[in-house]
Each structure stands twice: as C-alpha cells, then as structure tokens.
C-alpha cells in the first residue's frame, strides 16, 4: 500500500496501517534516538514514545514530508531527555559506541575491529557537540536527510541548518584531527 494511503487510514484510527509505517521508519527513528541519547534503554523508550505520540497526533499531520514530521517528534523527545540529563549527568561516552553490523560480505576480524575503533572515535566526537549541532550532523551525514528536511525537523531556516552543520563539522575536524590522521 502507498504511504499516503497508510497515513490516511492511520488518521482514521487503523492501527495496522500505522504499524506498517512504524516498520518502514523504525530503523531511522531508533538510530536517531540512539545517536542522540547514547543509552540503548533511553533510545528504546524515546523511540516507542515517539511512535505512540505520532499515532495519537497523526490527525494534526497536514501532509508534506511524513518522515521529517516523525523525526521531529523523536528529536524533540531526545532534546527533552538531554535537558533532563544535564541536571543529572549520568551518560558515559562508552554508551555512545554502537556495535557495527556484520556486513553481508564476511568481514575479517581486523576490519571489524577497525570499524569499531572508528565508530568509537566518531561517537566520542559527536558527544562533544552541542545538541542542535549533533542533531544536524546525525540527520544529514548519517540519516541522509536533505537540508530542507532537516529545516523541517528542527523547525529552523535553511541558513540555520547550513550554519549548524558548518560549525559541527569544524568541531569534529578539530577533535578528530587531534586523535587521528585525517589526510593520507
């Protein structure tokens, strides 16, 4: 069934139709929450809450980019959780490292170790970014959204998206440049 039909049926309260949308987008939503929050349990909670909120509030979706609308819900939930944590810092940087998935071509243990090490360095670098800069980098460089979609998710202008990405990458380059060779 087309996404538009699924959305219309979801607006009428069809939970099966909505769960087909969940199946389609849960990987992106979970990855965003996981990269933003670091802790798997918190990311799972944020993801589940985001989908419940989306189903409850789907009547307010007036068309346009459903993916961006959904990601804005989970982004706001993550921001709220991070604001709460700032008052009680408990997140360890180790929690931000995600185990790389096994490739379809069987990768060697060395490749796996290298990818894990790289993932750890990038995750640590992301953790140093302010919330909105981190969100912009995750949405563009990891999730692959366009500038326009990011502007919608973050409820900001294109100029703001451009500026946040620019500053975030400059910080990442400074952090990573001190810890590894960026250029051959």
């Amino acid at each position, binding site marked *: 069934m087309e996404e538009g039909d699924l959305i219309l049926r979801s607006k009428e309260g069809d939970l099966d139709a*909505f769960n087909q949308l969940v*199946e389609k987008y849960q990987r992106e939503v979970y990855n965003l929450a996981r990269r933003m929050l670091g802790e798997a349990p918190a990311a799972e909670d944020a993801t589940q809450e985001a*989908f419940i909120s989306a189903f409850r509030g789907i009547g307010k979706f007036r068309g346009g980019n459903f993916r961006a609308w959904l990601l804005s819900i989970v982004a706001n939930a993550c921001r709220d959780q991070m604001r709460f944590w700032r008052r009680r810092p408990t997140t360890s940087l180790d929690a931000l490292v995600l185990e790389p998935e096994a490739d379809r071509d069987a990768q060697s243990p060395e490749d796996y170790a290298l990818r894990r090490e790289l993932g750890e360095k990038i995750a640590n670098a992301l953790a140093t970014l302010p919330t909105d800069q981190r969100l912009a*980098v995750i949405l563009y460089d990891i999730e692959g959204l366009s500038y326009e979609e990011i502007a919608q998710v973050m409820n900001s202008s294109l100029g703001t998206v451009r500026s946040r*990405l620019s500053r975030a990458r400059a910080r990442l380059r400074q952090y990573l440049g001190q810890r590894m060779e*960026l*250029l051959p």
Partner: protein
Amino acid sequence: MFKPKSECQKVKGMLSPYIDRQLTSSEQGLVEAHLERCEACCRELESLRAVVNLVHRMPLVSPPRSFAVAEVAPKRRAVPVAVFSAATAVAVLLLAFFFVSDALNLFALEVPVEEQFREEVLMIDEAPDVVGAAGAGYETVENWPFWQLEVAFAALVVVLGALTIIWWRRSKAVEIAVKS
C-alpha cells in the same frame, strides 16, 4: 601572492555547504576561484571532506526489537476534566449573574396594591415583600429568591471546582506512571 585574510575566512565558512552542493552559483564560483589560488584553503577543504566521509561511514544499526504500537489507551484527561471545567465555568457565570441582578434589582417588579390594604402597607416600616419606594398604588417586590440562589450556586462552584482539581490530579498521576 597576497590574499586578503577576510576572503580566506569567508571561503572557509562556505566549505561545508560547498561539499554538500548547497551554495548558490555565485558563491560556488567565488569558492572555486579562491581554491585555485589558495593552498591553505584547499587543505582545509580536503580535511573537512575527510571528516564528512568518516561520519558518512557510520552505519545505521538495526533496532533491537519491533516498535509496533500494540494499543494506544485514550488520554484519560480529556473527558472528565473538560466536563467538570466547563460545568464550573457555567456555575461561576450564573453565580456572577445572580449577584449582579440582586445588586441592581434587575428582576424587581412593581405590582398594584389593593386599595383597601394600601394604607396599611404604607404604614408598615418593614414589610418583607416591599423592597423599595414605588409609585402611588404600587409596591416593589422581589420575585426571585436571590440569596438562596446565590448560596446554592456558590456551593455548586465549590463542589465542581474541587471535582475538576481532583480529576486533573488523577490524570496527571496516570500520565507520570505511564512515562516512568
């Protein structure tokens, strides 16, 4: 060759959107013309591109479980709290109406006094049904039991207001329990 520092600074600020092809054609021309003559900015671009490529290599991971929504309980706060709030508001408005009506004698009536009782009424200082001076042959009476209505509606406002607060606090407790 002398390159104004401000131009390098300006171009460095545009390298990120340049990588993403998000510059206007004139901005892109400016950047490319500058890169042809500035090695420092070229190195800056390459290191920035390397960072972007590194981050692009971070894979998406599979979610640990399905996040399909099993069932969504309706929000409990809506009906009872809204009903009690509306009822309280109506009771407050009616109470205010009765207070004002009583104060302004809006519903006072002038009724003809029977001729044979006229003198007796005028001689009595405190006739319970006479509320004000009337014209000759008429007396002013209050036909609404205002003070009883005021007391009744004041009590109603207190009861409905208390019920509103109790239901609101209960719905808040449920919401917090679901989230924790």
